[in-house]
């Protein structure tokens, strides 16, 4: 069963064609890696998939359902979650509160103006568990402003996982991390069960290549090569994209 | 028929005055991305300076035009001080800067009240422009027509400044993309001071030019600021051409509105602004969305 299918996706900003007729099919449980040089349009592609930017044409299907016209705020409710390249967390709050907000986003309680959020045992428990999964349970009450960059990356992942996504989009989850931190995040990601489909954008080849079942190479908004790791690495077009321009 | 003709000429005149007022506002809004809520008070300050210099309140009667330039320079300097001392404390926080300009407007307005008192002051029309011009059966005050000329001169001057000088190019770059401008080495914060001072000076100049028609009174700032806001929103942020056309449009709406629909005058004035903000927020000629 296909978890995520993108057909003929197009986007231009004025005269600049950022995404040109992209087709992508990610099977359920697959680990897909999207690579490409800077400016290839990888993050834009993610933004189109999550709905933060509206596409000019083409369609997006999530778990068989056409979500092209579905507004971005509904897509998490349909099973899609995402982490960001640039960290946009709630700096004034604790790590726990950040994850709580992620949990609350999918709950009907988010409209409740009366109950005390801090006293919602089940939500707090769930948030704690989400933090434990990424190894941050011991500092749950620490203000985000007092955490390290590596810890914040893990909070991002905790927030995404807290929403129990079927499809998880990770935008450069290893960016800016030290070797140890990279190893921790890698372990974390490998431990995610196969009922979650994962699509990752990464530059960092050594950690990313191990992770991927299939790789898509993007350049100037188009899919250039796609296939298994060996296929993509062997393909002459890959070398051309990275070296020959 | 003549009623409408008079209204039309008055509208164009008022439009000219509005252009003098709003061009500075538009520049500041375009570059610094903040609606300068002190602008009305600076206009009023210029008008009060005008009353003082021209009216000989300091014991010495200045020539009208010298007074106008002097007032403009003084208020421009004041504007530069305000920007450097206060606004620069809040880099990258436009909402905070707007609030500071709001607080400053209270201060400047009250200062004027302290110094010049509560009675309206009048400013004599400059001798060279006293009198009427006859157009058929109608007589138009020469000064009012002169304002149109003054506005045109200033418009051309500003256009030359923005289009033909290096500093104008820097301002335009800053309006289009402040971050990029910094990257190519433009000292954007210095530019902020310059433009704020220029805007303040223009406002003061407008104040004194308008004084013979509007006179000077407490509350003048509250009457003029909303007009500057409306002109710039409708005409477009950061666009001189927009201020030009916006001023004329508002000049007409204001005068015809007052004459034909007095009960709805304010409504008629602000409704177009609201509509523009809702449906075409960059205005007619604007470069960006507020």
């Amino acid at each position: 069963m296909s978890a995520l299918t993108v057909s003929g996706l197009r986007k231009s900003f004025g005269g600049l064609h950022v995404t040109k007729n992209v087709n992508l099919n990610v099977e359920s449980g697959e680990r897909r890696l999207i690579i490409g040089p800077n400016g290839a349009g990888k993050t834009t592609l993610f933004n189109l998939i999550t709905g933060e930017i509206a596409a000019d044409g083409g369609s997006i299907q999530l778990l068989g359902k056409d979500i092209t016209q579905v507004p971005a705020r509904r897509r998490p409710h349909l099973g899609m979650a995402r982490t960001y390249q640039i960290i946009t967390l709630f700096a004034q709050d604790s790590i726990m509160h950040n994850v709580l907000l992620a949990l609350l986003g999918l709950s009907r309680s988010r409209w409740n103006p009366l109950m005390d959020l801090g006293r919602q045992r089940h939500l707090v428990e769930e948030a704690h568990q989400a933090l434990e999964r990424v190894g941050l349970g011991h500092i749950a009450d620490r203000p985000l402003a007092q955490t390290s960059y590596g810890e914040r990356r893990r909070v991002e992942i905790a927030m995404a996982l807290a929403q129990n996504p079927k499809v998880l989009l990770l935008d450069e989850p290893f960016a800016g991390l030290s070797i140890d931190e990279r190893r921790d995040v890698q372990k974390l990601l490998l431990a995610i069960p196969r009922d979650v489909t994962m699509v990752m954008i990464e530059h960092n080849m050594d950690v990313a290549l191990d992770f991927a079942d299939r790789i898509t190479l993007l350049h100037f908004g188009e899919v250039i090569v796609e296939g298994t790791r060996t296929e993509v690495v062997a393909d002459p077009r890959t070398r051309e994209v990275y070296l020959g321009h | 028929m003549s009623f409408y003709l008079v209204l039309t000429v008055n509208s164009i005149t008022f439009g000219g005055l509005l252009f003098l007022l709003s061009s500075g506002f538009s520049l500041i809004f375009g570059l610094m991305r903040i609606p300068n809520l002190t602008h009305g008070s600076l206009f009023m300050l210029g008008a009060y300076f005008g009353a003082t210099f021209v009216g000989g309140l300091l014991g010495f009667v200045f020539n009208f035009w010298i007074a106008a330039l002097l007032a403009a320079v003084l208020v421009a300097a004041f504007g530069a001080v305000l920007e450097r001392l206060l606004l620069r404390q809040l880099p990258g926080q436009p909402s905070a800067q707007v609030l500071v300009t709001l607080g400053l407007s209270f201060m400047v307005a009250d200062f004027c009240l302290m110094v010049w008192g509560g009675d309206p002051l009048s400013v004599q029309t400059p001798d060279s422009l006293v009198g009427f011009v006859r157009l058929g059966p109608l007589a138009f005050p020469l000064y009012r027509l002169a304002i149109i000329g003054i506005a045109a001169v200033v418009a051309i001057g500003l256009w030359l400044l923005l289009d033909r000088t290096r500093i104008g190019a820097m301002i335009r770059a800053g309006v289009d993309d402040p971050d990029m401008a910094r990257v190519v080495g433009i000292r954007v914060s210095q530019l902020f001071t310059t433009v704020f001072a220029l805007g303040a000076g223009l406002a003061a100049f407008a104040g004194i030019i308008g004084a013979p028609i509007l006179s000077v009174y407490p509350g003048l700032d509250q009457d003029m600021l909303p007009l500057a806001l409306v002109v710039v929103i409708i005409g477009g942020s950061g666009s001189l051409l927009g201020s030009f056309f916006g001023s004329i449009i508002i000049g007409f709406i204001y005068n015809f509105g007052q004459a034909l629909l007095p009960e709805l005058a304010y409504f008629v004035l602000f409704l177009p602004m609201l509509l523009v903000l809702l449906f075409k927020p960059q205005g007619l000629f604007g470069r960006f969305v507020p």
Partner: protein
Amino acid sequence: MSARIVTLVVGAVLLITLPFWMPGVYYLNVASQILFYAVFAIGLNILAGYGGLVSLGHAALFGIAAYATGYLLQHGFGHPAAILIALVVAMASTALYAVLSLRASGIGYIMITLALGEIVWGLAYRWISVTGGDNGISVHVRPEPFGIALTSASAFYYTCLIVFALSTAMIAIFVRSPLGAALKGTRDQPRRMNALGYHVWAIRFWASMLSGLLTAIAGILFVYYNQFISPQTLALTASAEVVLMVIAGGASTLFGPVVGAALVVIVKSVVSGYLTRWNFLLGAIFVAIVILMPEGLVPGTVRLWKLGWRKTIARRPKIFKAGGPPV
């Protein structure tokens, strides 16, 4: 923690016993004013403090409720009917205000609300057949709920105190609720909230309605207190003053609004006896607070106490970040 409770208890006791120790009716009336302006400020704080939407036209909503009450009373309606209808009118106006202003955020929101405030002021000023124009509307009666005449200063004071206490309790609950947390989230990271599944516009809309409710209640108390409503109450200066109350006291704090209200009301009524140019003072305080202590007097004084002057100014937080694009 206990210092807070002690302060709260002491404060409550002082407020409840106020008519007994306050020297004279004049000061009792000042206290009443502080309380209903505090309710107004609490209302604005929902949007400006917790929501990050600085409304520069809020006096319009305040004034609409006051004018509606005055108009209805003038036309022979009884107090309960007048108050109820005025609230409905005010809430409908708030809904319209919200729909129009929430097209933008950040500077755009500030400008739309400013324009809306000016339009309503213009209507109050010019629509003489309804509002009486500059002459305003006079209200010579006060309600008598359960037979208690509110004409005496202390009876009116207690009414204001009860409304203030209820409003504070309401906000205290709201802020700790999921919707309150969501609202704060939309202030800090609107795009992120959208991506997490929240309906940012709807959250802001309901926050506006709650804000409008408290603002309307304050407006109704105002017209009963003042016995008169005129366009001046809706002017930009009035909107600026309530923004000052919120910011000076401490945006997005529970007791900031009442401290801010006290500051502004005291400067206007008491200080103005000694200092004729109190607008200058208000403006100066506003500028000083926005630059030096943007988090407001309530949190700022606490930090001042702990850190001393230099550190307080050096480490001042950035409260007014750009609101970001509308979501």
